[in-house]
């Protein structure tokens, strides 16, 4: 049995189509990533799976339980961590954890082994009110609360958004260790670099799935040559590169522009073209594609259709 099965789900909010025809399966024990920019429909999908939202059409099930008819069963076995901190700010760390443990009919002691690594980091502050914690600590507390009833599946909605780089790294290490315990994890994130930490990912854009595969396979399917191009004037560089007749696409990546192409050309050719446009300090080097390059490529293709 699959951990998650999603059949042809549609959801719209008045005019806006949040999800249009999502089909997806997640295996038991997988660390599965929903990757996409803001507004891709990640939150809607997670809320449907967490039984907080009805789809307009289609059907989803968690470990065989239907998200609409058998939501009670799902609520017993699922842990959910919304994107926004949703614990009681006027209760202390310990009180929050105790409250959620008791609501699920368990105790902190009983499942302490599961949250030990995370909770130990915030335990020195257990008498502090949750509202007074730092962002990273809030997130660890939220994860502890979502885990305290030993869920079979965990839904995490953008857990690393607005969290510093160190905490993000730590958080993903925690997720990896939870995977070892056998918990199926569905995590959404707008950060493409986090995709490579998942077993499998679904790339989402405007309520559709662009591709679902392992990060390695997604990168393997990339069918262009890719160059990182730099010059002194980044903004103009993108514009000019897009006018280059052998360019398939050009997108900014930090200080460089990633240039994708189907045709082979010599670097001098491009160098000459850019010099002709008045660019200085030009560097051009071939690079391996990342998930973000693949995402851009898939997105462009979908838009072309």
């Amino acid at each position: 049995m699959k951990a998650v099965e999603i059949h042809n789900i549609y959801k719209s909010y008045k005019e806006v189509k949040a999800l249009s025809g999502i089909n997806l399966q997640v295996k038991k024990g997988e660390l599965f990533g929903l990757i996409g920019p803001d507004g891709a429909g990640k939150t809607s999908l997670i809320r449907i799976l967490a039984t907080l939202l009805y789809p307009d059409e289609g059907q989803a099930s968690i470990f065989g339980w239907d998200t609409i008819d058998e939501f009670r069963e799902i609520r017993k076995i699922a842990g959910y961590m919304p994107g926004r901190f949703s614990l009681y700010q006027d209760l202390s760390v310990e009180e929050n954890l105790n409250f959620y443990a008791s609501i699920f009919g368990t105790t902190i002691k009983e499942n302490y082994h599961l949250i030990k690594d995370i909770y130990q980091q915030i335990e020195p502050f257990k008498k502090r009110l949750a509202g007074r914690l730092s962002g990273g600590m809030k997130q660890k507390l939220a994860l502890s609360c979502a885990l305290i009833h030993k869920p079979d599946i965990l839904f995490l909605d953008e857990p690393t958004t607005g969290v510093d780089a160190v905490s993000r790294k730590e958080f993903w290490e925690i997720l990896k260790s939870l995977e070892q315990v056998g918990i199926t994890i569905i995590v959404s994130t707008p950060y493409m670099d986090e995709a490579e930490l998942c077993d499998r990912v679904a790339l989402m854009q405007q309520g559709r799935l662009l591709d679902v595969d392992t990060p390695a396979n997604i990168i393997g399917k990339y069918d262009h040559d890719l160059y990182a191009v730099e010059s002194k004037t980044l903004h103009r560089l993108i514009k000019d590169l897009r006018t280059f007749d052998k360019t398939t696409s050009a997108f900014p990546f930090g200080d460089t522009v990633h240039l994708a192409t189907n045709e082979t050309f010599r670097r001098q050719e491009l160098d000459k073209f850019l010099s002709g446009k008045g660019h200085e300090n030009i560097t051009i080097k071939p690079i391996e594609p990342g998930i973000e390059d693949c995402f851009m490529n898939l997105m462009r293709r979908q838009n072309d259709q």
Partner: protein
Amino acid sequence: MRTIGFLIQKEFIQIFRNKTLLPLIFAVPILQLVILVNAATLEMKKIDMTVVDKDMTSTSRQLIQKFDGSPFYQVDKARFSVKNAEADLKDNTADIVIHIPHGFEDDLLDEKEADVQFLINAINNTAAGLINAYTTSIISDYNNKILAEQIGKKFELPVEINYRYFFNTQLDYNIYMLPGILVILVTIIGMFLTALNIVREKELGTIEQLNVTPIKKYQFIIGKMLPFMVIALFELAFGLVIGHLFFNLPMEGSYAVLFLFTLVYLLVALGFGLFLSAISNSQQQVMFVMFFFMLTFILMSGIFTPTESMPEWAQTVNVINPFAYFMKVIRMIILKGSGLADIRHEIYSMLIYALIILSLAIWRYRKVA
């Protein structure tokens, strides 16, 4: 059962930690009772009177003396013309003007009949009515005295009316007002706290986290209602203690009956709060809607004016006004000593009302969007 216990425990921790709410729970009853009971009174204690005495005789002075001697009147100005006296009415330094025309004494002795004119400031019609009633009673008293003098012996009316007021023998306004204020107090605390609490959970998103737990609807609702019911009942007890200590509030009926009815009433009041919170998304919305209902309900409840004197349609509207029921019942129990049998219709009505409003609230409160 245990789940409900944990929910209630959580609510109480939050309430006792709330630095604004906790003092309010104690301060509001004291302030409302002490201030409102004393302020919202219909007794006229000091009526400012301007005198225009054109007769200037011992008889006219005797009449003025009658007013001056009364604890309700303060005769503080004398004018020579009605016009000047009217100016006092206009700048609010006089509530009433007594105008005794020239020849008052002579007319009274010769014709056995004389005229006196009163001008009353009727900006506040209730006050004007009261002043009129007081004045009339002083004049009739004066009439009796003159008649007795003329006949030469103590005069007695063939039919004399002696009043005895039942249930509030002294016509003490305080003990009429106080139960009414208690009703408002208990309702505000119960209804507002419940509604605001749930909407706050919506605003902060904490309800989302609660929704994905196996908590059942009824557990959630009971967990939200019970703490505020306890607080509201505490407020009633607290208010009654203040009433007994400072206002000589009697208690003719039984506390058990009063608290039993309050409990049933709170199901309605809190159900109302629950329903409003179920259909609102922000504290602002809830406050606004609730304020509208509260104001209308309080004014129509009979706290100041008897509901019996309202137009028929208003009395019909009062069927859905929970305040009106409680206002009536609390006075019946405290002042009249009514028992369960006397208020059984109100209890039935409240139970039906509670059933309807709570069903509505539970129906509107959904765990999924």
